[in-house]
């Protein structure tokens, strides 16, 4: 389904616009995606769920949150509090994203209620409506980086580079997220939210937003009553001052790569990263692997990578290496929105599914 490239086409990333219609008409919406052949017994083994790894990691996560909160509060007013808040910020404002993601997939724990509890906690920390974002992410997996269908495209074309840079400060995204929660709490869902959240779930989304906003209101009231920043440093604030790691790892998932394709090897990036970041990010650096086989839990992704790598482009060798690839590509997309990084495949790989549709 390769259509002629129209260099003058202005992309419409809304979920109710011209590109949405085109995605449906061309068959890009809900398409059948390329997947590397893996024997059933092998993939079944990789898909197996366990409680142990996520229980261990969650215990460490809560312990680090506790240490950060204790030190930050105990040493408040002195420089000694800074490393504790840095720790707390990253555990709250960045590690929350990977926990939200993995528990949303239901793959972190074998036991269902454990996924649900951590999903709710992490959704609050990352300032996402736990109902609507569950459906948003399902759409992201159905129509990954399909313009007009995927609600989670971070790097649109042409890119708003200033906004991408400012994302690291966390303020703009926090403002947008809070505005969304307030709007949901008042009972309003946008046309985009109504597009990917089934009507039966709308009332749950509104209730969740009201609960989140009530907690923020209490936090703000305590901060005002005690005339202290500490409640805001503990709740809500870390989503701003601690989100940098989430952005650092998250923005290289897809930025600079292809749009409107049905092969995750063209629109997703696998990056080999340091073990600390891998723990914070719960192995989502194996991002092609995750999109091809979303049922494989985070702790099995390194094994899946070894099995798939003969069929994947070479991974980026570090976070810095990924940015060296992504930043020039994004800057070039400001001038040439059709441009994307096209990586060579190893000789052992199946060819790319080159059904790129420049609509």
């Amino acid at each position, binding site marked *: 389904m390769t259509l002629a490239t129209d260099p003058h086409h202005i992309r419409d990333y809304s979920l109710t616009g011209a590109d949405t219609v085109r995605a449906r008409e061309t068959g890009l919406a*809900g398409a059948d995606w390329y997947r590397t052949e893996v024997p059933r017994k092998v993939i*079944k083994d990789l*898909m*197996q*769920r366990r409680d142990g790894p996520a229980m261990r990691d969650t215990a460490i996560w809560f312990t680090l949150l506790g240490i950060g909160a204790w030190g930050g509060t105990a040493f408040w007013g002195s420089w000694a509090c800074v490393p504790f808040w840095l720790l707390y910020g990253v555990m709250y404002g960045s590690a929350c994203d990977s926990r939200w993601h993995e528990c949303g*997939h*239901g*793959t972190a724990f*074998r036991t*269902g209620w454990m996924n649900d509890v951590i999903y709710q906690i992490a959704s609050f920390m990352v300032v996402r409506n736990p109902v609507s974002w*569950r*459906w948003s992410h*399902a759409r992201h*997996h*159905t129509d990954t980086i399909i313009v007009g269908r995927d609600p989670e495209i971070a790097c649109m074309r042409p890119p708003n580079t200033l906004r991408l840079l400012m994302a690291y400060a966390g303020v703009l995204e926090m403002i947008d997220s809070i505005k969304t929660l307030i709007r949901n709490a008042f009972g309003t869902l946008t046309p985009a939210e109504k597009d990917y959240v*089934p009507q*039966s*779930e709308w009332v749950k989304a509104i209730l969740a937003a009201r609960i989140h906003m009530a907690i923020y209101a209490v936090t703000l009231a305590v901060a005002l009553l005690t005339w202290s920043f500490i409640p805001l440093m503990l709740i809500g604030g870390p989503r701003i001052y601690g989100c940098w790691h989430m952005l650092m790892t998250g923005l290289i998932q897809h930025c600079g790569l292809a749009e409107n394709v049905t092969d995750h090897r063209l629109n997703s990036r696998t990056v080999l990263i340091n073990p600390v970041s891998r723990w914070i990010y719960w192995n989502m650096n194996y991002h092609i692997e995750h999109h091809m*086989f*979303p*049922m494989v839990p985070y702790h099995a992704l390194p094994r899946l990578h070894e099995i798939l790598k003969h069929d994947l482009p070479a991974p980026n060798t570090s976070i810095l290496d990924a940015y060296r690839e992504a930043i020039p590509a994004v800057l070039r997309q400001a001038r040439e929105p059709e441009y994307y990084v096209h990586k060579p495949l190893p000789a052992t790989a199946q060819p790319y599914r080159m059904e790129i549709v420049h609509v």
Partner: protein
Amino acid sequence: MSDPAWTDVCDAEDIDAEDVIRFDHAGRTFAVYRAPDGTPFATDGLCTHEKVHLAEGLVMDDTIECPKHNGRFNYRTGAALRAPVCVNLATYPARLADGRIEILI
């Protein structure tokens, strides 16, 4: 002699315990399971959320998890258990007969 009302699927050994296969028949597609104790079950083959073949998913105890979005059904009852699936799955009687799995559709 097998009952013609029942449709032959496969040899019982073709499906591992706690696993599933795809079975296409008469223009329709089904998912045929064996529970951990070996009992056979059958449902529609496509997820009610986005029509993905469930046979590529994961069987855990009484549930089948869709390979695309991780929605879950109870394959014994067809009940939708976990978002993003909301609509129940149709189920069909299944049995073991002379070492073969058969379903009633």
